[in-house]
């Protein structure tokens, strides 16, 4: 059973959804049969590379005075999932390089560790996820070889894979992230509750099981 997840490392609901899915998998009877694949999606692809804008300033420009209340509310919901969001320290950046490195990390077998490290760095530590020194540190902490990180950052390696992921999300009908696809048959959109994720997992598994039984007859 394969779950593909389209998300961005600066998307609060993606981090919250990740935790909720993990909680659901902790209760799922067939979790050992599940493989999770991270896919790239950029929420702000037009953000100029090399610029880092304080997220609260970015939101205030976009939404006005209500931005502070918005972030407070999302931070409260994150806290319920055990996440410590610090929007006051967060930086809005172009995440293309971060996504390229996530593809590298996946190839190195540490995709989930790298994803988690970048999410925590953005939402809790106020890291600039477009800064190459910062990305190098975070990826090596997640277990990727530093020379490969530097080589990818010095090239456009994996840029095509990032674009392909984005195109595929559109093709599959995603109109936002996080977007979860189970076995290319079921789509689950948004940061669902852990209970809803668990129900979706069981539904997809049962349908797969039924299809296999029918095929065997």
């Amino acid at each position, binding site marked *: 059973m*394969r779950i593909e997840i389209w998300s*961005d490392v600066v*998307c*609060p*609901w*993606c981090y*919250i959804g990740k935790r909720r899915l993990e909680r659901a998998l902790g209760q799922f009877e067939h979790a050992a049969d599940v*493989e*999770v*694949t*991270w*896919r790239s999606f950029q*929420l*702000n692809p037009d953000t100029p590379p090399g610029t880092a804008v304080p*997220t609260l300033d970015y*939101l205030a420009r*976009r*939404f006005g005075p*209500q*931005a502070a209340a*918005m*972030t407070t*509310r*999302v931070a409260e*919901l994150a806290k319920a999932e055990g996440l410590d969001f610090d*929007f006051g320290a967060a930086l809005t950046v172009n995440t293309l390089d971060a996504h390229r490195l*996530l*593809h590298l990390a*996946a*190839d190195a*077998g*540490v*995709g*989930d560790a790298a994803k988690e490290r970048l999410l925590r760095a953005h939402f809790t530590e106020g890291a600039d996820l477009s800064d190459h020194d910062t990305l190098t540190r975070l990826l090596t902490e997640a277990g990727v070889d530093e020379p490969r990180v530097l080589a990818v950052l010095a090239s456009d390696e994996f840029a095509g894979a990032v674009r*392909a992921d984005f195109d*595929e999300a559109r093709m*599959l*009908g995603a*109109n*936002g*992230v*996080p*977007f979860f*696809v*189970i076995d*290319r*048959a*079921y*789509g*689950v*959109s*948004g*940061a*669902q*509750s852990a209970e*809803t*994720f668990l*129900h*979706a997992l069981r*539904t997809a598994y049962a349908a797969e099981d039924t299809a296999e039984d029918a095929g065997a007859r």
Partner: protein
Amino acid sequence: MNRTDASEPSAPLIALGDQDAAACADGVCHVPAEADEPQP
């Protein structure tokens, strides 16, 4: 939890779960359940 490279053609997906669950699109995040207002 790691990535693989399969991208086989697919039929339309069957939607599961709450269709109003919180998500982000085009730089804006929404919380439809309690208040239909944009979120960061």
